[in-house]
């Protein structure tokens, strides 16, 4: 499993990577996961539905992450946007 974070000016960065079956690596993943949530990030797991369509699932704790998930993507939490000078939200 890989924990990724979307970063301005960079794209995604790998925060942690490991095998959840390995207790030591799982502990490192859990620690990195909690640190991101504590920093106010949202976490999503890309999934594939039964009909083959892709979607995402928001998770609020490491226990909610499906054990077979390959990636968890962290991104800044949504906020009501304000208009910038160029009109962008």
């Amino acid at each position, binding site marked *: 499993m890989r924990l*990724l974070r*979307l*970063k*301005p*000016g*960079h*794209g*995604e960065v790998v925060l942690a990577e490991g095998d959840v079956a390995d207790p030591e690596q799982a502990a490192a993943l859990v620690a990195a996961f909690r640190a991101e949530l504590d*920093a106010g990030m*949202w976490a*999503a797991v*890309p999934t594939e539905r039964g009909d083959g*369509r*892709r*979607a*995402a*699932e*928001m998770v609020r704790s490491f226990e909610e992450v499906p054990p077979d998930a390959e990636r968890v*993507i962290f*991104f*800044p*939490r*949504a*906020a*009501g*946007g*304000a*208009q910038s000078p160029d*009109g*962008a*939200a």
Partner: protein
Amino acid sequence: MTLPLSAAAIMAVGLAWELARPRLRASLPGRARALVSRWVGRAAPATVEDPGRERRAELRARQLLRSCVNEEEWAMYRDLGFLSVPGAASTCAYLVYPHRPIVAYAPGTGSVLNEYCVAFPDETRPYGSARLPDADDVLAKWMALSADERRVIAEANMHLPGRQVDVRRVRKDLVRLARWERARAAGSVRAA
């Protein structure tokens, strides 16, 4: 009398500092420049003056978006520059633009319903900006909408159509989308 003179003096010093700062930084050797940059609360030029950085970030973001969304959605973003994401109710769908409000519309009639102004600011500003690359912004909106539409809509500022995204542009994009979907359907029929 003293107060206006003091205020004018402070403004003059501030203005002179603002004018002199770029030249001062440029004239300093690297280490001193970094110290000055830190002192004035700005990132060192070495970390902000990279014209390729934003482009590399966008390329990386597009790869990630492509790996997460359906093939059709990726092709839509690549060809049209936005995504159409179905809502939980079949009477509503969303146009997802990079760094623009999410626009709700009725797929059956093409009516533009609302704008949902939402942003994903990273206040840590790791590279001097709080703004995600375009494709990452679209991915964040897509993940949030497809996972928890109500939560995103609740967090967003709702406005009537046309506040930030020109309704004529949205209508044009809906026409482009319909044309694109027809061409794609025709292509897949021909391929079959």
